[in-house]
């Protein structure tokens, strides 16, 4: 049996062979039957391969473009939780393909290690460790003393108690995070003073804003938490994202942390993780709209956006601005600067891609326009010599 598989090892990829091997044992196929199966499969495999000259990029663009027309333009709100809203559909897809630095609604899903999620109380504790809590959230009043040049903060003592703080703890974190300001504890709050004694008037306001935003507990950026049980796993859904700090927490299962902020993933986990996130996000948006786009389109797009080691959007500043042809770039956006810059460096357009050839009315080097037939006329011999002049060296990028 094994030698039959060997025969097909160069025709079919290993994974398909593995699949057939697994099925074959169940079906109890004979040698003849197995050969037939393998022949049929390799025929089908051959047929489903992309042929040279196929406009894969354009078909990808069409696949997303067509389904894009059917997507909603709304932002959905979760029932019951008014603050937890999600950008979905077309706005999110555009955000993703443009590779925006910060998504409109950053989100994270954090899995908690099971030893920290034994009961509801423990889970709630971890969740509250994730959620950012600023000084503003637990205080009632910020007052500026212009004469003394300091800031006085009155804490909401019942809230402080509810969150399980002591004033000493808060003082410690404040001192850690505000290095340039002196912190003095009172019975009902804190006084913030300049190291030299008196703040300048303009500085006073700046410091006040800074003091308000000091995170006394939790992770900066995470504004909402919602713990959910998925099977045996405990997952905390978070509005807001901060991958780096979440990964550092000991309660978190660092292998199961996801974020929709591509650039945070890129910074902390690298380009491959960013690529995978891009694919997952893209597919989930399309699925969420009840549409169906083949994975391979998403794969192609993700590869295109990440193959340089950084994330690049399909924008003027990203992929589309890096096309090899002057005419192609000029036809996308802002034609005049492109033409002027090209003339400064004396650029030559080789007319190798689609748009340029449409412009000069020549056959586009795709499909039937790709192969050329060359034969010697003078010799008048019947020897015809075919030659694929342009191999599909470069996939057409769009």
């Amino acid at each position, binding site marked *: 049996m094994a030698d039959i598989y060997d025969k097909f090892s160069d025709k079919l990829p290993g994974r398909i062979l593995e699949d057939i091997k697994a099925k074959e044992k169940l079906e109890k196929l004979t040698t003849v039957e197995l050969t037939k199966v393998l022949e049929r499969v390799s025929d089908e495999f051959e047929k489903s391969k992309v042929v040279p000259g196929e406009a894969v990029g354009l078909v990808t663009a069409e696949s997303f473009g067509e389904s894009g027309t059917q997507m909603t333009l709304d932002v959905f709100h979760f029932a019951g939780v008014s603050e937890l809203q999600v950008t979905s559909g077309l706005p999110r897809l555009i955000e993703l393909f443009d590779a925006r630095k910060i998504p409109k609604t950053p989100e994270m899903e954090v899995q908690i290690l099971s030893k920290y999620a034994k009961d509801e109380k423990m889970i709630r504790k971890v969740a509250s460790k994730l959620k950012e809590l600023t000084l503003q959230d637990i205080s009632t009043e910020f007052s500026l003393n212009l004469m003394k040049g300091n800031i006085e903060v009155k804490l909401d003592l019942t809230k402080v108690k509810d969150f399980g703080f002591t004033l000493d703890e808060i003082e410690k974190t404040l001192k850690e995070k505000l290095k340039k300001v002196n912190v003095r504890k009172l019975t009902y709050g804190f006084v913030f003073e300049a190291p030299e004694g008196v703040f300048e008037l303009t500085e006073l306001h700046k410091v006040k804003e800074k003091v308000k935003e000091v995170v006394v507990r939790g992770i900066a950026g995470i504004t909402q938490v919602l713990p959910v049980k998925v099977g045996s796993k405990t997952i905390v859904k978070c509005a807001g994202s901060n991958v780096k700090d979440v990964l550092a927490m000991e309660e978190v299962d660092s292998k199961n942390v996801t974020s929709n902020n591509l650039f945070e993933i890129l910074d902390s986990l690298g380009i491959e993780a960013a690529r995978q996130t891009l694919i997952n996000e893209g597919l989930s948006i399309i699925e969420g709209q009840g549409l169906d786009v083949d994975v391979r389109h998403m794969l192609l797009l993700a590869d295109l956006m990440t193959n340089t080691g950084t994330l690049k959007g399909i924008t003027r500043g990203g992929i589309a601005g890096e096309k090899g042809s002057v005419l192609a770039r000029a036809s996308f956006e802002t034609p005049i600067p492109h033409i002027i810059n090209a003339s400064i460096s004396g650029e030559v357009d080789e007319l190798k891609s689609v748009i340029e050839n449409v412009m000069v009315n020549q056959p*586009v080097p795709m499909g039937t326009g790709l192969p050329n037939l060359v034969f010697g006329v003078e010799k008048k011999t019947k020897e015809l010599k075919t030659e694929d002049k342009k191999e599909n060296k470069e996939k057409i990028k769009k």
Partner: protein
Amino acid sequence: MVDIFLDEKFIGSVEDANKFVSDIRTSRRNGDIPNTLNLHYDEGSDEIIVETNKGRVRRPLIIVENGVSKLTEDHIKRLKDGEFNWDELVKTGIIEYIDAGEEEDCYVALTEEELTTEHTHLEVSPITILGLCTSLIPYSNFGSSSRLIRGSKIQKQSLGMYSTNFMNRLDTDSNVLHYPQKPIVKTFMHDILNYENTPSGQNFTIAVMSYEGYNMEDAVIINKGSIDRGLARSTYYKPYKLEELRYSGGLRDEVGIPDKETKGYKSEKDYRHLETDGIAYTEAKLNSDDVVIGRSSPPRFLSGLEEFSVAANIRRESSSYLGEGASGTVDMTYLTESNAGNRLIKTRLRQQRIPEIGDKFASRHGQKGVIGMLYPQEDMPFTESGITPDIIFSPHSLPGRMTISHVIEILAGKLGALDGTYIDAASFDTPSEDDLRARLLELGFRENGTETMYNGLSGQRFKVKIFIGNIYYLRLKHMAANKLHTRAAGRVQLLTRQPVEGRAMGGGLRLGEMEKDCLVAHGASLLLKERFDSDKTIFHVCEDCGMIAVYDNYRHTAHCPRCGASAKVSPIELSYAFKLLLDEIKSLGISPSINLEDKF
């Protein structure tokens, strides 16, 4: 203290805002203050805003005091007897006009039954929350709002009698329906608007079913027999006008059959309908390219000397003639004078428009569609009593759009047609659907409006009962005859040498950006090239400098004016638009060059 602003200007302040506002209102109702004044107290900004400006939208409401409407039965009786009129209602403080600002202070009841002591006003009728066109839609409270909006828009496009003196008018592109009917299912707004004297639709017998597939995707099938009997037939009027213009130097246009020497003389055949005065005779049947009014103009741009030359005396042809695909009968000619005092000729053409495939029809519920097929009466499905529908409407148009009003109108229309009554279907206060059903049952029909029907082609009985009834249908002004267009070759633009745009010009049919993408995706590279060949041109390019060379059409030689006769010049095929792009780049001060190279 509360500040008062009169027309956005501060005029003073008062202690008790609510008392002030109610005092002003009382004196307005008493007629001491003009009733065009509106005011309200904005609690948010704590100020009183008084408006007397023009341009505010206001609507009438019945005043309510202590939960009792000020409009009594006695008033209504006197109104009916003509002792009283609307203006007096307003003057005596029974009805007042409220603007958007004052509305914030009001609590308006929709019907008299729901009045409580808290209410300040009562709607004159619930239907006043709708506009004029929307209130003409029957059972509109059963339809979704987006469909009502579409329904209103559609009614504005329907053919009917747009004006009773249409015979004497010369509107551009007007249509008149031949046998307009009163709607069986109507609202009282039809009476108020005098709709029934100039209606704009007909009562069709409608079957809701799919038949042979020609009514999918919003298309409708229409009975050819009904059309032959005059259903939805209309006349299309189009005037052609021409002015005898005067130019400097005593030159002027001449209306008449142009001389054969005239520049641009069409052909004798094209002028055959013109009488000696140069205007086509009444009842002349014209087709495309035929001249309606003949005219010749003096030559343009005459300089002093040329005035005496022979060539200068040749006049230009400038007649008014029918465009591509147009035809019609001369209906009437007006001879008059333009504002500038020139002789003005207007000739109106008339054309009977019999419904054909592609003409647009709609019900009043935003359910529009074009004719997909005309079936002869014998091929239409028929009921047990031998009734064939005028129109077959697809059931797939209903669930997604939720136009329940459309369905109820069919049922009500059926009842009205059988009963010989008009059905009142005004919004919010209509007799219930159960009532319609009961009356239909009384007449011996199935209460849900369905009937057993037979296939007109095979004679077989349909396995399901078909919903059949009557509905008021509108013929819309979008007709296939005005839009049909094809082109193989024709005029091109001067600048780009690409085909001109638009039907009137005999323009090309554009293969757009996304259509181009489809061809590329299929790899049909050479087909794509052929489709974009419309402006292809052969240029000679200098191989030394890469600039476009000069071609001598007499000697059939080309040379590069920049590099001299020695430079090699080769012909290449390019789109003219690309040459234009190169020229525009040159105008930026950039010199683009074409480097030629053997293709193989």
